[in-house]
C-alpha cells in the first residue's frame, strides 16, 4: 500500500524516563513523565495535544495519562496490536491521524515495569485455560514446555542455522556490536559494559541455540514521541525529523510468535512487506540508509531483517555482519544507542527515538551525514517499520 502522506509528517519531540531494572514508581507515572518530556522537547504545551496513540498491551489508558498531563480534549486515540511489532505501527498511525486531520499533535507512548513487575521472560504462567483466542493459540505450545518468547524464537533460529550455516557466533556479533554502542551511551543500562564474543559464547543457555546474551534485557521505563504534520513541524523549535514512510506488515499464514507453518520459516515475510512499502513510498533503497535501528529482542531475527530489506542477499547476513558492517564506521551502523540488548527494552520505542536523534545529529554515537535512518518493529509478530529522514 502506498502512503499518500509519505514525507508529509514528522516527529517533533522525543522524551523518555531513565531505563532501569526497578523504576520504583508506577507505570502510569513512567508514561506521564516520558510524555511530558516529549511534549516539552517539541516546544508544545499539554493542552495542545489532541491525539494519542498507544500499544494494546500498554496498561495505561490514554485518558489516565491525559488527565495527569493536563491534556484537555482528544479527537483521536487508537492502539496498535502485537507488542513490539507495534513500534513503528504507532508512528504510522499517528502520521495518518495528523495527515488526515483527525488530530493535530499526536502523542505516542509506551511505558512499563517489564523487569520489576511483569517479566515476559518468566514465561506464560498461571493463566486459566478458558478458551479465549489467545489461550487456544497458547494451547499449541504451552503444554510442551514452550512458555517463553525465547523458546518460540529459538525455533526459527535453529532452522535458519540449519539452512544457511549461520552459527551462534554470528548471532553473538549482533550482541557485541549493540553492547559496544551501549558502552558509550550514558542512558544505556549497560553503559560502560561492553562484551566480547567470548563473553557471548560463555553466557548460559536460555533456550538453545539462544545464549543469555542473545536475549535482550528486561527493562523498566517509558518512551514517548510527538508527531505532527511537516507543515506544523516547521513552526516548532526542533529541526523536523520527517516520517519519509512508515508501514505495517502481516503476511500470509501469520501467527503470533509461531508462524511455523509457512513453506519457509527462515525469512520474515511480514518485514519484507514493510520493506516493499517503504522503498515504494520513498523511492529509496538500502544504499540510501546511513544507519539502521533493527529490532533486536533476540539476535537471530536481526539476520533475516537485514535480508528482507536487501542490505545483503538471503542467507548472507552472517557474512554481512562478520564484515563489521553494523559497527560505527561500517556500511550500516546499527542500534547506535545500544539497542534493546544494550540500552533498554521498551518495545522498540527507544529505538525510534534513537533514529530521531541520528537524523537530528544528536546521537551519542552519531553517524556522519545522516539523511535517512531505517527503524524496524518487533519480529515474529505482525510488524512495522519506518524511514526517518532529514527535512529537505
Amino acid at each position: 500500500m502506498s502512503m499518500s502522506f509519505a514525507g508529509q509528517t514528522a516527529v517533533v519531540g522525543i522524551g523518555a524516563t531513565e531505563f532501569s531494572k526497578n523504576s520504583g514508581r508506577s507505570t502510569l507515572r513512567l508514561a506521564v513523565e516520558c510524555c511530558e518530556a516529549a511534549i516539552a522537547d517539541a516546544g508544545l504545551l499539554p493542552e495542545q495535544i489532541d491525539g494519542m496513540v498507544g500499544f494494546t498491551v500498554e496498561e495505561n489508558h490514554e485518558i489516565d495519562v491525559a488527565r495527569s498531563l493536563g491534556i484537555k480534549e482528544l479527537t483521536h486515540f487508537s492502539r496498535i496490536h502485537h507488542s513490539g511489532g507495534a513500534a513503528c505501527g504507532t508512528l504510522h498511525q499517528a502520521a495518518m491521524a495528523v495527515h488526515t486531520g483527525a488530530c493535530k499533535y499526536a502523542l505516542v507512548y509506551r511505558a512499563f515495569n517489564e523487569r520489576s513487575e511483569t517479566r515476559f521472560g518468566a514465561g506464560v504462567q498461571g493463566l486459566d485455560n478458558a478458551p479465549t483466542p489467545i489461550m487456544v493459540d497458547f494451547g499449541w505450545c504451552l503444554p510442551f514446555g514452550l512458555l517463553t518468547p525465547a523458546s518460540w524464537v529459538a525455533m526459527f533460529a535453529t532452522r535458519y542455522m540449519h539452512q544457511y550455516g549461520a552459527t551462534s557466533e554470528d548471532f553473538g556479533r549482533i550482541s557485541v556490536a549493540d553492547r559496544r554502542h551501549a558502552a558509550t551511551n550514558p542512558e544505556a543500562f549497560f553503559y560502560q559494559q561492553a562484551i566480547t564474543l567470548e563473553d557471548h559464547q560463555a553466557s548460559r543457555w536460555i533456550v538453545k541455540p539462544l545464549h543469555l546474551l542473545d536475549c535482550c534485557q528486561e527493562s523498566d521505563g517509558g518512551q514517548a514521541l510527538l508527531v505532527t504534520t511537516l507543515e506544523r513541524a516547521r513552526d516548532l523549535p526542533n529541526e523536523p525529523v520527517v516520517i519519509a514512510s512508515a508501514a505495517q506488515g502481516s503476511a500470509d499464514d501469520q501467527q503470533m510468535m509461531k508462524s511455523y507453518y509457512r513453506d519457509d520459516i527462515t525469512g520474515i515475510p511480514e518485514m519484507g512487506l514493510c520493506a516493499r512499502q517503504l522503498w515504494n513510498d520513498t523511492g529509496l533503497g538500502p544504499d540510501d540508509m546511513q544507519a539502521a535501528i533493527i529490532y533486536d529482542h533476540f539476535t537471530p531475527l536481526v539476520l533475516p531483517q537485514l535480508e528482507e530489506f536487501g542490505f545483503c542477499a538471503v542467507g548472507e547476513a552472517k557474512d554481512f555482519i562478520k564484515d563489521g558492517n553494523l559497527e560505527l564506521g561500517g556500511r550500516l551502523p546499527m542500534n547506535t544507542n545500544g539497542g534493546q540488548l544494550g540500552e533498554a527494552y521498551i518495545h522498540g520505542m527507544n529505538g525510534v527515538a534513537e533514529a530521531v536523534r541520528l537524523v537530528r545529529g544528536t546521537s551519542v554515537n552519531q553517524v556522519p551525514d545522516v539523511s535517512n535512518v531505517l527503524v524496524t518493529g518487533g519480529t515474529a509478530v505482525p510488524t512495522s517499520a519506518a524511514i526517518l529522514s532529514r527535512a529537505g
Partner: protein
Amino acid sequence: MSDDNKSKTPDALLAALRRIVGVATEPRVTRDDVNQAMIRHWCDAMEDHNPVYTDPAFAAESVHGGIVAPPAMLDTWSMPGLAPRPRQESSSGEEAGMVPVLNQLDAAGFTSVVAAGMSHEYHRYLKPGDRLTISQVITSVSDEKQTALGVGHFFTTESNFADQQGNSVGRMEFSILKFKPGTGTVNMDASALEGLEKMPRPRPAISRDTKFFWDGVDQGELRIQKCNSCDGLHHPPVVRCPGCGSYELGYLVSQGRGTVYSFVEVHHPQFPMFDYPLVGVLVELEEGTRIISNLVGVKPEDVETGMPVELAIEATDPGLSLPLFRRARPARRESTLLFADLEPGQELPPCPVAISRTLIVAGAMASRDFQDVHHDPDLAKKRGSPDTFMNIMTTSGLTNRYVTDWAGPEVIFRKLSLRLGVPNFPGDTLTYTGQVQSTALRDGKGVVELLVTGTNKLGDHVTATVELELPTP
C-alpha cells in the same frame, strides 16, 4: 529336608543353599514342543517382524530352510507357565536346580526376585516340532549382600538344552537376585520415579474449533484439519478453508511419521511440571503440515534437523494426553548384511522402544513368565517396586529384534548375553544403540561381536554383547 527355614540362621540358610550348588537336575522334557503359536505370540509382543519366524515361504528359502524360533526364546521353552513350581531334583533324588533355591529363599523372607543378567549360547536354531530336554544346575550362591533393591542373595544357574536326538541346542547362564522387600538402600517408592507425581502441565485451552484435535489425542489419534472440499490441510485449525472458501472442514488421522524441521532445548527458566532436558520440536509430518511437540527418549545432543520421528501419544499428566514424538524406529533391513560390510567401530542406528504397560505384560506372557511384578502393579508395589517392570526375557527379545532389524533376517545369533541395570517401567522409552566391537573369520565363518546398550530415562537398562554369524559369499 524342608524343616522350618524361618528359624534357620543366615549361616544355616547359606549352607543349605550351597548344598544345592553343583547338583544337576534330572533332564526334564519341556512342557510344549517348539511351536508356531508361541513363536507368533512372542513376535507380536516384541513387534519382531522377521519373516523367518512366521512366514513359511520366506523361511523355506532362507538359510534356515524353514520356520525357526527367535533365538532369544531359548529359555521360554523351559518355563513352567502358570502352574506351581515343579519339583526339581537330581536323578538320585537330591534337591537340585533353581526351584529348591527359590523355595528356601522365599521361606526365609527373601520373597522378591529380580534378574541380574543372562547369557545364551545357541548351537542351532530351534524349529517347530523340536522337543527339548533341559537340565539345570546351580553354579553359585552369594553371601548375603546389601543391594540397592534390598538385602539378598545372588545365585546363578546353568541350563543345558538338548533336542529329541540328544544333541545340545543351547546353553544358558542366568543370574538372579532374591531379596527382602523394603530393605533397599534406594527409595523405590513411586515418588522416586520422575514424572509420576508432579505439578500438572499447562492444559491446552480448547475451543469449539479445536475440540476435534484434542478429542483425537484422547483417543490416541493425531488429527490434522482437512478441508472436505479441496483436501487442503490446516494446522492449527482454521474455521473456513482459506484455499477454497469451504466451511466443511474435517480431519485426517496422521500416520504419525515425520521429520524434525526445527528444534530447541529449553534451559531457563525451568518449571516443576516438565522434565528437563526438554526438547521442543517442530515436526514436519509426512502428510504435509507441521506441529509443535516434544521429542522424548532422545538426548538433546542427538537431535538433528531432518531426523525421522514418530508419534507417541502419551498420558503426561492425570487426564491429559499429548501428541509427543520419539525417534523413529529404523526400518527393518530386508536383505541380510554381509560380513564384508562390517568393521569394528561401526555404529548401529539408535532405535526407540516405547515401554507400554501392554508391552511389559505381553512380553511376560509371551515368555511364560507369570511373576506378579511383571503384570500386577499392586503386587509389584508390595514387592518393593514402584510399578510393574519389564522381565529380562522381554529385554532379550527386544535386543534380539534390534540386532536382526539392523543386520537382516538371516543373521545367525551365536551368543546373546545381557546385564540388567535400571528397570523398564511403563511410560518410559528404551533407546537402543550399538556398535560393532570386532569382526573375525573363524572356520570360514564371519563372526561379528556387538556391544548393545538400551537406556531409558533412569539410566542404562541393559548392556548386551552379541555374537553373530554373517554371510561370507
